[in-house]
């Protein structure tokens, strides 16, 4: 009888925690989108400036797009519409920003998800290997991790693209297919896998030195069972904590990788938007990126809280 109210209270706390996170996510998206819009507006030149030499054509286009109004007025108008999730129309594509971003965001999300799965599948087992034993294999993995950590995803993608083009092992561009995902996903996943490997290795080493693990080994529990069943679970806390940050870096890194590998995601769309001063599209792409980041952090926090009951959802922000 005495435990029931406590459980209800904990659930309530968790819901409040989720609500706080959701509000923070909305605020983040709003701030990032607004900042991007304002920065794109104050950058020299506007969309109409690129339309050739005829001043009448440029003036007509400015009037059509509302670019002849003061920046504050344009921003206020965008803000009013964005409250109803209308992010305006792209200047160059003459289509709603929401539709354009939605088409590309799905591809970016697919790429990011695949990269995350690959990074986890490669990084975690490798980290367990290097954290639990020495030897040649562990040395090779550690060296590879250090190399991958020191090389930015952009360079990794260039190398992978070159290999793919020279060998024909994977297509670059063309129709969407699983094989087309290989190069960009690997380019994003390999540095992340190296990060995970390093973290997992250290976390597992720490876990194996805890008294309960030493006791388990002393009781004769097989080492592999101690590592994979007990120590590994104990070591997951710091790994999950970093996942939120990793998802954020995944999206920022994916923009560059998408451009190099011709992946039709948000990266290329945002580049085009920036280069042509398509301000509403810039804001839309930035908002999508911020949304991904906020969602990633939220998912990581929820997972963390679910795995480790000691996480204080009341104070975590």
């Amino acid at each position, binding site marked *: 009888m005495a435990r029931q109210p406590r459980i209800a209270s904990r659930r309530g706390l968790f819901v409040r925690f989720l609500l706080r996170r959701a509000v923070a996510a909305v605020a983040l998206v709003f701030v990032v989108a607004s900042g991007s819009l304002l920065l794109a507006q104050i950058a020299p030149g506007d969309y109409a*400036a690129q339309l050739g030499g005829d001043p009448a*054509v440029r003036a007509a286009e400015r009037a059509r797009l509302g670019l002849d109004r003061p920046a504050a007025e344009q921003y206020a108008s965008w803000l009013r519409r964005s409250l109803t999730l209308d992010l305006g129309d792209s200047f160059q594509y003459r289509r709603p920003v929401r539709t354009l971003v939605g088409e590309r965001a799905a591809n970016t999300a697919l790429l990011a998800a695949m990269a995350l799965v690959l990074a986890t599948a490669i990084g975690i087992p490798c980290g367990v290997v290097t954290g639990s034993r020495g030897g040649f294999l562990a040395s090779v993995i550690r060296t590879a991790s250090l190399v991958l950590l020191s090389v930015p995803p952009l360079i990794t993608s260039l190398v992978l693209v070159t290999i793919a083009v020279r*060998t024909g092992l994977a297509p670059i*561009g*063309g129709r969407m297919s699983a094989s087309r995902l290989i190069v960009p996903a690997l380019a994003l996943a390999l540095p992340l896998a190296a990060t995970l490997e390093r973290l997992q290795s250290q976390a597992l080493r720490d876990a194996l030195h805890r008294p309960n693990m030493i006791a388990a080994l002393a009781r004769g529990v097989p080492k592999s069972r101690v590592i994979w069943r007990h120590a590994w679970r104990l070591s997951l806390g710091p790994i999950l904590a970093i996942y939120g940050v990793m998802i954020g870096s995944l999206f920022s890194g994916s923009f560059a990788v998408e451009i190099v590998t011709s992946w039709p995601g948000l990266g290329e769309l945002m580049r*085009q938007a920036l280069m042509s001063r398509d301000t509403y599209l810039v804001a839309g792409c930035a908002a999508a990126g911020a949304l991904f980041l906020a969602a990633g952090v939220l998912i990581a926090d929820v997972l963390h809280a679910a795995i480790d009951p000691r996480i204080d959802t009341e104070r975590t922000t």
Partner: protein
Amino acid sequence: MIALLSSFDYDGARQHRGISTPGANRLAACRLLRQRVGPTRKNPRKSDDGDRPSNWPVSSRVARACRARYVCPLFALILAAVSGCRSSELSTRQGAGGPVRGGALVASLRSEPRTFNRYIDNSAAADATAALTQAKLVRINRKTEELEPWLAERWTASPDGRTFTLTLRQGVTFSDGVPFTSADVLFSFAAAYDPKLQSNLGSALRVEGKPLQIAAPDPATIVITLPAPFTPGLRLLDNLPIIPKHQLDPALKAGTFADAWGVTNGPGHMAGLGPFVVSEYVPGQRVTLTRNTRYWRKDASGGALPYLDRVVFEIASGQDAEVQRLESGSIDLLTQADIRPQDYASLKRLRDRGALTLIDVGTGVDPNVLWFNLARTPPARAYLQKSEFRQAISYAVDRDAIVNSVYLGAAVPVYGPVTPGNRIWFSDAAPKYPHDPERARALFAAIGLTDRNGDGMLEDASGAPVRFSILTQGGNIRAQTATVVQEHLRQAGITVDVVALDFPSIAQRWQSRDYDSIYYGFQFSAMDPAMTLDYWLSSGSLHFWNPEQKTPATPWERRIDELMQQQIAAPTLDERRRLFAEVQKIFGENLPGIYFIAPKVSIATNPRVAGAEPALLDPKILWNPDTLNVTDGAAAPHR
């Protein structure tokens, strides 16, 4: 008629190190054969991509199987001979069996299409799509520069050369089966001139700023009257794709024409008179065009055109991605076709292996130019306005050094906007400025710019150092060229600040006249100077150094205005050429724009592409899409 080259669709760079003539390719094929027989026998494992037919993509299943099974020497020998011969035969002409029907041609598109409505968008994507899906009344043959009948099968001109009566081709239908009539021509002009649309096509279809008068006495006849004498006459019409009245008239009346034929509502619904119709658009990936079964043109033997079943534009983000795909064999050609110096070496290796065809097209006709702001200059630096200053700069810059260091030999020095690539209009009599530092110093001294404090740099009469900035596009060959110019001028005693910006920033600074000088490029859409009056006339909006003058600011600009007006009305080509040569001479003496080099244009295609007749003007390859074909025809399942 002249377009500013946008920042992400042009690098202004080409490379030339060899000419892909049939003879040269035969020699290369023989060398290739010798090279391949040896190593293949000794170590089959080392056999490279050359062991497969050149039209197989590197990533194809068959190619991987061949690699995996260590192709036997005899097979390799046969394939090497086949691929070698292929490269020698297909650079500019068909294979022995004539054009092959069927199959798909895959071309890259450097940027996403914004719309398929060419009337409101002049981007490369819209231009390429219009070239394939629409047709014009007349066409300028990009190879011969001759005016050819197209939808208009013949025409007559009035004695004063201002009225043309065109007879339209009979039996032509749009891709949706609706007959083509003079009403469609009237509608196309109405759309182009619609004041609400402000179509770039309409601004090009004017003579002395006035629109053409169009009449349609019957469904098969069009009468066009020019508002003023204009010798190029019907050449103006090469810019205008004819669009279907039955489909777009409601949109024009409702004021929604700009939204018609968008990327989402266009595919599958656009009726056209071109060889293909847009059938699919996948955002970020591709545009697919399929054969227009009602296309009106026939080939020389009376067979239906086009030869191809499909053309696929694959969207590639930037030139690097395009070249990678060309190298891997996953695309056949680049829509914006010329290749950059830095890509040439790897493409040449593929050419030598028979996996690629490289064609030398000639000297480019769109050179980059350094121009000074002659509309507004700070009084303290009045020397920036002086023609002696610009002449001295032209002498001070070593063009050969730019050719060799920036363009790796793939360019020629030029001294004016008309390059030797423009065979009809180039005048060799225009002034030239070979590298001469002493002469440059003398010219600087003549306007009071000398080294007054012995630091090796020039100062003006007030003792202020001579200094100016060059705005240019960052991250490409223009910025590299500007850096070389900066160094040469430093040696001449002038400090130059190179400011690399993106295209919108440069455009904004130019439009607000807030700059010292700009180094940039313009794309000419026609060789004939009468079609680029906006550049030559002082009232022109693309008279970059001082646009839209109410009255000519200088005597030499007034003289150029007069000569150009005479030139466009002169009755004979010889007379027009004589007048334009004088224009080039005056331009060269006053140098409102300083030209350094013109790149040589090389074009690379997959050897399976046949029937290509590359030209110097865009679209360099796709200007004759109905006779393009692929040698393996329908036997290319991967495409």
